[in-house]
């Protein structure tokens, strides 16, 4: 994969004073009672009152250069997945600048977004299209993905007829055969039964080796230590530590856990 991107500029991620708020449109909404109340000067109180949502990321400054393997650690709700999705351009920043160079490939919630009434093969095409690939590019990889999934003749049956393990195998196979030199992985490493986990881990290792830049979030600290050289500890949307991965894990364990 590196050959493919050899003529492209080196991958890089720069975040400058980036703040992100969760989309809160569902709460901050139009309600007839509150609108009429405002018209007649009645003050809202309690849970109905329009409140500014808490920031998921607070003024983050971060630079990730080509060749870096970065592990992001922290408690649930610390902002790890939000940070990855912000780098991927999925969540818009409320303030600050995100400057990404490279072809971004995110591996998030791999089982989410499959079309359950469509066949496995149709989902391969669908997920490829979702990542912006052309039908020709998908066709070139289709058989490889299907072979890797090990689903055999089940690939032409609706996904709704699959066991949960088969769904994970399909989703993992699709997600990890897409290309990019800025690789963002959210908690995805183990998939399927023992036999498939082995090939899945080998596949992930190959992806990481070929990625120009790798950012990974996980609660599995030994795995983070094994595959990353730099560690970032996030707490309540702020960077508490940024440095060598083992030092980051030590700081996190001493001060947060």
């Amino acid at each position, binding site marked *: 994969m590196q050959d493919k991107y050899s003529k492209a500029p080196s991958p890089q991620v720069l975040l400058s004073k980036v703040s992100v708020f969760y989309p809160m449109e569902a709460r901050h909404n*139009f*309600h007839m009672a509150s609108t009429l109340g405002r018209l007649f000067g009645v003050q809202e109180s309690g849970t109905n009152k329009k409140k500014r949502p808490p920031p998921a990321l607070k003024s983050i400054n971060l630079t990730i250069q080509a060749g870096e393997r970065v592990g992001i650690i922290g408690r649930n709700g610390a902002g790890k997945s939000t940070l990855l999705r912000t780098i991927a351009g999925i969540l818009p920043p409320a*303030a600050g600048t995100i400057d*990404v160079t490279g072809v971004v490939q995110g591996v998030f919630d791999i089982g989410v*977004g499959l079309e359950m009434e469509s066949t496995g093969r149709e989902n391969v095409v669908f997920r490829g299209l979702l990542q*912006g690939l052309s039908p020709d590019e998908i066709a070139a990889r289709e058989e490889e993905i299907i072979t890797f999934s090990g689903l055999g003749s089940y690939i032409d049956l609706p996904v709704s007829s699959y066991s949960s393990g088969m769904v994970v195998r399909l989703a993992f196979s699709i997600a990890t055969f897409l290309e990019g030199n800025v690789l963002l992985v959210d908690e995805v490493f183990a998939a399927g039964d023992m036999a498939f986990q082995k090939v899945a881990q080998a596949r992930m290792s190959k992806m990481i080796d070929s990625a120009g830049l790798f950012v990974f979030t996980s609660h599995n600290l030994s795995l983070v230590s094994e595959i990353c050289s730099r560690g970032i500890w996030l707490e309540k949307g702020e960077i508490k530590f940024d440095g060598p991965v083992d030092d980051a894990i030590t700081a996190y364990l001493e001060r947060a856990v």
Partner: protein
Amino acid sequence: MKLKGDYILNGSVWTWDNYWADFWRYRHLTAHLASSSMRDKVRGAGGDLLWIIAHPLILSGIFAVVFGNVFGGGNIAQFIVYVLSGIVVFEYFAGLLGGSLNVLTNAQPFLKQARTPIVVYLLQHSIFQSVLFCYGILGLIAVAAISGGVKFGLSWAVLPVVFALIAITFAPLAIIGGLVGYKKKGLRPFITYFVMVLYYLTPVFIARDLFDSSALKLFTFLNPISQSLDLVRIPLIYGKLPDLVSFSVVGIWAIILWSSALLYLSTSERIRFSAR
């Protein structure tokens, strides 16, 4: 909350040029989602595509018989075409506006996977509704041709232009409805109610003359669906060329709706007119 951050990918933010270039990159996904919506629609009709075409025909037949008797005699064959044209055009409008309210909410699992222009999900709904509209038009033309209650003539030659104008005019409602339905969820019941009220304030199945009373005249003149129905019915049923005023009113609505949709899209997606 006003968002002031920037996302710069490979040196550029989303401008109108590269936003539509991104949309073009996802054109196959757009087509896939539209055909997927069509599949769901057919599945919802018990797997029968013919039912989708037959449904408005049966409905208009019932309306024509019931209201033909209520308002006394008249040309039932002509009234069936009148009602069917009303249902086909109004269902296109209602399907675009009312049907788009959940589009972005339903697309959330996909939108969380990759940076995709949301217009992909909004325009796929326009395409899906336009395909249904085409099926409706085919049914309408078939009924008009065999009913014997209409005047067939050269005026029918203007119908492709009329249907294209209606399709283009109302297509941006999917963008507006989709964004409002997602960002202002509390407005959804009001929009559904608005569509229902508009159904009765538009000559869908009630005789057109009744809408020329002084109370409704101005509203009917400004109502793009009423004007669209005049554009369809005058050549199709009465064998005459439609009024240029109707073309103008619908054309102005096309400009208003597209401008509003693109403006709303640009603020929602933070599209700029030029690169930084």
